[in-house]
């Protein structure tokens, strides 16, 4: 377990889990899982464009995820098409466009599977730098925004009436979401990124009595899943990202089971 690539995978994955935990709580509370999904799938367009023009992939993904976030906010102003339909539509359109763009580039440098499911063992030193610098910025903003964003998540009108700057906070939140998605895509791929956000938070919910507890438990579950998933991956030679996500699912099932039993009684 001391191979350098393994250490980088562990450090990168755990850093991401830590940063994604509080953000994932907000994604769950604000019911934005499908928003995250649409933004994440649009990341494939960013990857394809980045490869085509030889740009930094994280940067090109970030630009595209931000653009798609903006587009979604714009589209959500109309009320004829419900928001979940709209999000599904954008997610699939983005995936389609991403795959088409990728097929047009062709060539040996593009392995679609890698981008759909990530390659955590391919994390480089430069990637680690991105994860930790981007992660620290994100974490700082998350802590700074925690109170107002929590107030907005509980009741938006109430928060607004009490003087919280709702539009501003929501804007920064979407920005952070795009940033974390851009970082996570490298590790767990376009299709599993949202799992990294919502699954630790979901597993933490049944055990939590305060919002802060939920964020902390989510971080612990996320980091444990990274460690256990990587161990599983090495031991059984399974793909890294999916192994981590599977571990998250196991944590969720174990955590939620007691409350399922309570409901039945």
């Amino acid at each position: 377990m001391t191979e350098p690539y393994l250490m980088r995978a562990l450090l990168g994955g755990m850093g991401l889990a830590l940063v994604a935990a509080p953000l994932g709580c907000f994604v769950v509370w604000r019911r934005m899982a499908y928003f995250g999904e649409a933004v994440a799938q649009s990341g494939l367009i960013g990857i394809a464009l980045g490869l085509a023009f030889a740009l930094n992939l994280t940067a090109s993904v970030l630009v595209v995820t931000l653009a798609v976030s903006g587009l979604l906010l714009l589209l959500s102003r109309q009320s004829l098409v419900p928001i979940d339909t709209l999000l599904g539509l954008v997610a699939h359109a983005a995936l389609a466009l991403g795959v088409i763009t990728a097929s047009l580039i062709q060539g040996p440098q593009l392995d679609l599977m890698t981008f759909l499911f990530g390659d955590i063992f391919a994390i480089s030193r430069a990637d680690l730098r991105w994860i930790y610098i981007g992660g620290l910025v994100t974490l700082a903003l998350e802590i700074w925004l925690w109170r107002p964003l929590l107030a907005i998540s509980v009741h938006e009108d109430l928060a607004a009436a009490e003087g919280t700057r709702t539009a501003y906070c929501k804007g920064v939140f979407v920005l952070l979401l795009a940033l974390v998605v851009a970082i996570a895509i490298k590790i767990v791929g376009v299709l599993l990124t949202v799992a990294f956000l919502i699954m630790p938070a979901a597993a933490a919910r049944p055990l939590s009595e305060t919002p802060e507890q939920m964020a902390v438990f989510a971080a612990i579950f996320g980091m444990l899943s990274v460690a256990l998933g990587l161990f599983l991956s090495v031991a059984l030679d399974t793909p890294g990202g999916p192994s981590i996500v599977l571990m998250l699912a196991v944590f969720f099932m174990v955590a939620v089971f007691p409350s399922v039993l309570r409901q039945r009684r």
Partner: protein
Amino acid sequence: MDGRERQPPTSPPSAGRQSADRQAWNGEAAAAAHGAAGNGRLGDERREGDLISARGILLSRGGRTLLQDVDIDVAPGEIVTLIGPNGAGKTTLVRVLLGILPPNRGVVKRKAGLGVGYVPQRLEVDRSIPLTVARFVALGRRSSTAQIERALAEVGAQALLERQLTELSGGELQRVVLARALVRSPELLVLDEPVRGVDYAGEAELYTLIGRLRSERGFGVLLVSHDLHIVMAQSDRVICLNHHVCCSGVPHSVAQHPEYARLFGPQASRAIGLYQHHHDHSHDLAGATRPSPRPQEFK
């Protein structure tokens, strides 16, 4: 407790718009303010010192005009009741006044730094957010445990302090939301149909509570109701809204107004505004009986 908190006055402001309250709010000596009581301005002219004041509000959405040419003010210490049928635009007007919804035309002026306590019509908190009552009450600001406990005690909900918000009944939740409004030491309390889903006794108790708190603290109250049969007896003014202001005035004069009779039917005139609470016991919002007068620990 912050500096704006008023001592329980020996002579509670009964007629609302008294300059006494306004001066107290402006930070002048309360003693001087009491001396000046009675010089209230009751005229219809534009009043200085209003907590909130809206002029010519027009709001339309999707081609429908929801509010047209609405003027409304609330002065310190005044209870203004906004009544109107369902769908008359009452909640929309409240959201415009609170700055949640921008109007298409018109201006809303709020006193600089106005502290607002808001009790929205329906509060549903997503069950995915783990939140204790204490935390909910203090949300978005720093409050000491003592402040939170005092606010909960004021609405008779001190026992709920450590409970999860998701476990509360409708009546309990409503009290907790009111406590959240009170812990901010608001200058203006806005209640949007606070009695919806509460039985008659609970309704009566809530109105009594609001009236008493107003007397103790001197904040202005904007109360929304679609139930025309009970308007708080302490209301200083009633504004009847049906997309526009149909009529307004003291409860009695509104009840006699032809516009009001036209909107709600002739029977409504007999019923309005005269709720008085003269029972030898009261019911809390959960339905349990309590002896009156109210226990002193509420002070």
